[in-house]
């Protein structure tokens, strides 16, 4: 894909440092221990790119994950940030708690399809309902990589495993499920489509609510046979971008010579803008019903659509609903928290 939307995610125009004066390598993590060619590593690379281009303050990022090959990847980017590899399927609750404690943290959750759609579907559902301000990346390979290739709940019914087993249960489409539950940012991408993935992640990182990014990410070891819908071959052949997408930060060069009307622009709270340009259909990612239809059609036709399906930039998130103070709860001092003697006296009196 070549795009004329001025997205600074390419190699050519990339500045040596970002708006914080940090180099891309400042967003690196420790070396990956995943299989060569694992889709997850490409997503890690895209995340590094996106975090850097978005100028995210590394010290404020909380990298949250569960258990699985995918969940390990939070160690492979941004060593300057805190990471929390929790227990299997329960990343959302830990992330929620961390964000309650410190509202200035930038929540980046990375999970797998097993971690999210199998054991973790309950916490996924409730994190979405609460609109927890979390970029929630699912590295979706349709199998449990780390335990050697069993089907996960995103494998479609009838899918065949590397060993010939047939999946007997309906697969979960995390994007349409998230939409159903009221998610405020819903996107899908393909780990091999970095051009699309980076701007999607950039937008997700700037979203002030839950941002579900379902990334098809082939497991080269257990689910990369050509008839697997989670393989590189299948993905490359079938991916259909629903639009071109770009993300422009306030400090990025303005996109001047672009006729209005041909694209949709979504303003984000920090002044950034999501730019979406038509490829072969008219699609407004702010229209939830359109997203419903799009995904239901795609499911019927067995299409692999990617792009930003839905965004609602201004729905209050969980933290907004709680009227938290400026200072993170974690930093409040005894004097801010312990009521005075009068208060205790008052309570005591109520029990007399």
């Amino acid at each position: 894909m070549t795009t004329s939307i001025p997205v600074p995610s390419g190699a050519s125009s990339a500045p040596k440092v970002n708006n914080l004066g940090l180099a891309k390598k400042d967003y690196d993590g420790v070396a990956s221990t995943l299989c060569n060619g694992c889709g997850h590593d490409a997503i890690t690379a895209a995340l590094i790119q996106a975090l850097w281009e978005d100028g995210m303050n590394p010290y404020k990022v909380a990298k949250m994950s569960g258990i699985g090959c995918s969940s390990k990847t939070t160690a492979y980017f941004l060593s300057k940030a805190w990471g929390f590899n929790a227990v299997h399927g329960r990343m959302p609750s830990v992330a929620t708690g961390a964000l309650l404690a410190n509202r200035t943290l930038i929540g980046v959750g990375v999970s797998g399809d097993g971690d999210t759609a199998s054991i973790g579907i309950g916490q996924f559902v409730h994190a979405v309902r609460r609109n927890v301000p979390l970029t929630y990346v699912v590295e979706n390979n349709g199998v449990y990589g780390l335990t050697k290739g069993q089907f996960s709940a995103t494998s479609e019914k009838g899918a065949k495993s590397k060993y010939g087993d047939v999946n007997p249960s309906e697969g979960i489409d995390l994007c349409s499920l998230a939409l159903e539950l009221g998610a405020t940012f819903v996107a899908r991408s393909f780990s091999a489509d970095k051009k699309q993935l980076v701007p999607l992640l950039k937008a997700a990182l700037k979203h002030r609510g839950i941002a579900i990014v379902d990334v098809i990410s082939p497991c080269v070891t257990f689910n990369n046979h050509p008839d697997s819908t989670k393989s590189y071959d299948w993905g490359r052949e079938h991916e259909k971008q629903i639009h071109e997408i770009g993300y422009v930060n306030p400090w990025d060069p303005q996109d001047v010579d672009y006729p209005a009307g041909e694209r949709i622009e979504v303003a984000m709270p920090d002044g950034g803008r999501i730019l979406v340009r038509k490829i072969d259909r008219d699609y407004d990612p702010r229209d939830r019903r359109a997203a419903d239809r799009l995904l239901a059609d795609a499911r019927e036709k067995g299409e692999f659509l990617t792009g930003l399906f839905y965004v609602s930039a201004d729905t209050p998130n969980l933290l907004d609903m709680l009227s938290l103070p400026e200072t993170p709860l974690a930093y409040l001092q005894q004097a801010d928290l312990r009521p005075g003697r009068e208060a205790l006296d008052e309570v005591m009196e109520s029990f007399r």
Partner: protein
Amino acid sequence: MTPPSAVETASPGAQTAMVVNDFTILVATVNGTGSQTSNNTLIRTIMGMGVPVAGRNIFPSNIYGLPTWYAIRVCQDGWSGRQRKANVLIAMNLATAHDDVAKAAAGAAVIYDQPMGLDTLRKDLVYYPVPFAKLVKEACPDKPALWKLVTNMVYVGVAAQLLGLDMTSVEAALAKAFGSKPKALSVNQAAVRVGAKWAAENLKKRDPYRVEPRNLTSGKILIDGNSASALGALMAGCTVLTWYPITPSSSLAESLQDYFTKYRRTASGEQRYAVVQAEDELAAVGMAIGAGWAGARSMTTTSGPGISLMSEFIGLAYYAEIPVVIIDVQRVGPSTGLPTRTMQGDLLFTAYNSHGDTKHPLLFPTSAQEAYEMTMVAFDIAERFQTPTFLMLDLELGMNNWLCDPFPYPVGDIDRGKVLTKADIERLGANGWGRYKDVDGDGIPYRTLPGTEIDGAAYFTRGTGHDEQARYTEDSAAYKRNLDRLLKKWETLRNAVPGPVLSPAKSPTRVGLVALGTTHWPIEEARATLRGKGVEFDYMRLRAFPFADAVRDFFASHDRVYVIEENRDGQMAAMLRIEIPETSDKIKSVLHYDGLPLDAETVVEEILAHETR
């Protein structure tokens, strides 16, 4: 209406001497009928007369229509434990009335709804049939919808009259209950008055039980352990509460939410707290752990089933060393068990909770005041030792009303433990510290809080193997070093938790008693009784797990020790045997596990049965 003469002549209680300020009133009703307010009025009236009381609710796991009992222990000596038998029975529930009568103490007074016709059941009781249906119509002629509710206030009036309760005190109690609702106040006042008047005119006092004013409660408060603990959390600086409803813990979370709303909302509407009702216990503790990790004082509340569900996360918090306070208001297990009955049933499971080698500090409050104070202690321990810390309440303490002195304002400051700030890291250099390094020789490492803006502050938290620098490792030696350090931390913790409270006999005894939590009260009462019989025992009340050195010493200086607890399997005895092996032979378990709180009589009987002399 005159009471049937059969009762009048047969009642053996009629001629005995007065029993003043030392008996139990049992009100048997149906739940959901609003009797709680009436019972509160009774208890507050007696308290208002300066006489010590304790209120105990024995209620079903159900919202409406099943039997429920409220026991008020009136005791000027201050004993607050349950008594097995009621001296004054107010029998309002036909479904249980026969059984209630059968279980009443000899000579008990029975106030009952006349149509039940209970007076032929036993000859040794004093019966007071009351035409409640008639009286309630009198009290509130124009509001039939309220009759069911108001009937309960009529029995308050009858009982007040019979027991000699002070009407000013009754009025004060009513004012406290209905102060803000004048209409309700006047209806209820009328009901009490009608009951009292009718009783004065129609009932002849033939039982010995009376309340007489004293001056023993002035300044005191009557509070449930859950509210007390919530207040402790407020004072401790808890900022994050994530919880899932479960009896008998829900009222703790709800009280804390109320206190937060009242005392942590600034004028500008800022809320210096976050409360999230999670979708289940896994999420509740997961959120609390996430918040603890990020630096908030966080907690969750639950009961047994919740502890089971939290097990995986508890192991993570232990191994990754994350502070979090978990309050277990214990109820009767196994499984869903008897959700509205009390038990010390989660001790062993909580102490060593989660797979692998794990141990956790537990605190055992005995009184409302300790519930308040130990909640604060729990937060300090959790942060100081970076480990999940449990406050073990139970339904008996948490949901019942206890008379006690008002709580002191906390002395001393919150201890947030070993947290390195940006300045510290600047001083130490980026490689100058290690998240899991034992710098001070106490096994407790240092941590940083996410968001600290300096290179080298960040570390990676995981439940997998990690080295001193929090790096992933599968190295055997590194794994073992870390596990050994955790053990050293445990050793440090052992003498940092509240030690036992020793209550020696007048002269040292060879036989000792050990207990924890609310069984303390019946045990102290039993000790007094036994003392009266010339039998004395040294007594140690455990306040925490692990066991401080003083616990070992107590065992060392006694030949035989009764460990008294409310469960079937002797869970505390098991923990003592594991941790202090040499105690094993000395332990004799006294176990009470029918869901009702232990009573002094049982203690006396059990001990005497063994210690025959």
